[in-house]
């Protein structure tokens, strides 16, 4: 069995009397794009910070590509975008990336910097100073920084929090591009639609514990069948897709005219609210 890119085992983190993480365990396979959801204070950022070595666990283990989280070997293969970050205002975008190339040991030079700035939509802003950039532009630069050195694991903590709809679209496209490159991504976000549309798998964390884990399609469930009839719309609660032909046959047999049939599924949002309630 191949080594998971990120493995979290019985992870506990306590801040004094507060237990931020209570025995969290999961694995993320190579190339998986996983969305981490949860309400404020659920432990998402703590989990992400432990994975990149900024926070020490109280108990349990986290490995990145087989190496203990926080070790030099682990940090060599990951890229991280913090929820709260700031680059020196006196640096240009290009200089920020040069610094991170040197720290990451990347020898890809100007070509990599150009490509990354293009990828996040800052292709013509390499010479621009950080302190003249908008918050959204700095967030894009943060994404480019996280991708320096072609990391195997990308940990993104609220990467779209400062972005406008166009910026969010750029991030969605970027995540798609990363999937084609086989990069493993743990995306910590509040935007359920983002996760539903881009992620292979969703983890929902609540009060320090995983309360749901699965593909977005698995986490949602059939809610019923909606049939459009001459006299209006009727909903058959609890019916599944397999029930649709029988329902239509019975309605037609009863003399009804059927104009449309829709299979209803709960949304990820409904499922999320259900499990974190």
């Amino acid at each position, binding site marked *: 069995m191949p080594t998971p890119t990120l493995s979290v085992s019985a992870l506990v983190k306590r801040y004094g009397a507060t237990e931020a993480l209570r025995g969290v365990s999961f694995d993320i396979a190579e190339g998986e794009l996983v969305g981490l959801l949860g309400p404020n204070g659920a432990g998402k950022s703590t989990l992400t910070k432990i994975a990149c070595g900024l926070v020490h666990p109280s108990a349990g283990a986290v490995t990145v590509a087989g190496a203990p989280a926080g070790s030099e070997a682990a940090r060599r293969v990951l890229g991280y975008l913090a929820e*709260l970050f700031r680059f020196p205002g*006196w640096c240009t975008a290009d200089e920020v990336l040069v610094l991170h190339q040197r*720290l990451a040991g990347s020898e890809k030079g100007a070509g990599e910097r150009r490509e990354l700035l293009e990828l996040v939509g800052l292709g013509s802003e390499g010479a621009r100073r950080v302190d003249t950039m908008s918050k959204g532009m700095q967030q894009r630069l943060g994404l480019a920084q996280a991708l320096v050195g072609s990391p195997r694991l990308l940990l993104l903590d609220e990467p779209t929090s400062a972005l406008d709809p166009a910026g969010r679209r750029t991030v969605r496209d970027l995540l798609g591009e990363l999937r084609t490159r086989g990069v493993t991504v743990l995306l910590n976000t509040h935007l359920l639609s983002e996760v539903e549309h881009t992620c292979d798998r969703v983890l929902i964390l609540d009060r320090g514990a995983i309360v749901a884990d699965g593909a977005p399609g698995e986490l949602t469930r059939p809610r019923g069948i909606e049939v459009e009839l001459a006299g209006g719309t009727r909903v058959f609660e609890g019916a599944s897709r397999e029930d649709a032909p029988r329902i239509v046959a019975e309605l037609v047999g009863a003399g009804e005219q059927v104009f449309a049939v829709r299979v209803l599924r709960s949304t990820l949002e409904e499922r999320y609210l259900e499990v974190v309630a």
Partner: protein
Amino acid sequence: MILVARHALRESLRRRIFAVVLALSVLFGALYAFGAHELFKDVSGFAGDSSGLDAKTLAGATILGLAMFGSLFLGSVLAVFLTAGAVRGDAETGTLQPLIVRPLSRRRYLAGRLLAASVVSAGYVAFAYLGAVLLTGLIGHWWPDNVVGSLIRLSGAAVVVSALALLGSVFLTATANGIAVLMVYGAGLLAGLLGEIGDAVPSHSLQRIADIASWALPFEQLYRDALRELVGSAHGVTGAIIQLGPLGGSHDAGPLLLPWAVAYVVLATLLAAWAFTRRDV
């Protein structure tokens, strides 16, 4: 480590810290030159005094001692500004996290920050001190006994302050740390002055307070020793007046001072690294 130090040095240059400090230093130098000129002109009338007072040495040592106090103070302020927020301050603004998730150990990060702060603060102190020595020599035709000895001790004092500020940055926010280090700096100099009074009175209690403070905060003893090195050969009335004044170094710290100062910086940095590696960011 070198990469972090270069980045911090570039920050000093790009944020025009050097330019501002240089401009103010030129102004300080001009005022110093004017003051030295007036002082040496006034004391020239004391030549041939029957008391044996060497007025030129007294004037030179006093005004150069004042310049040393000023340059160490400014160098220490620079050190504090460059390191006060190195850990907690930078973590709170989000500047630190992108750097230390890279394959850069926290120890090397701290060492880089200390190197940059030491180069800037000790470099500034050396620049200001040598400038003052040169102006004093050219204007008053008086040169201190041991220029290099004083230079090493004074620059070393700035490095000790940098290490203290770096250590404080692991535990305190940038503002709290800046205030704390400058208060410790003031307390150290005050203890040194008490020691001077203790030597003059003499008072064993004051001498003991000064001794404890000078080993706990060696920047103060380095500064006093740098003053003492200025006029090692001044004896008699001149030597006594200089040594008992606020800008004289009456107390010889002995040969262990420099090794202790080096060990102190190493220990403070190791303690900072130990605490930083255990800290959640």
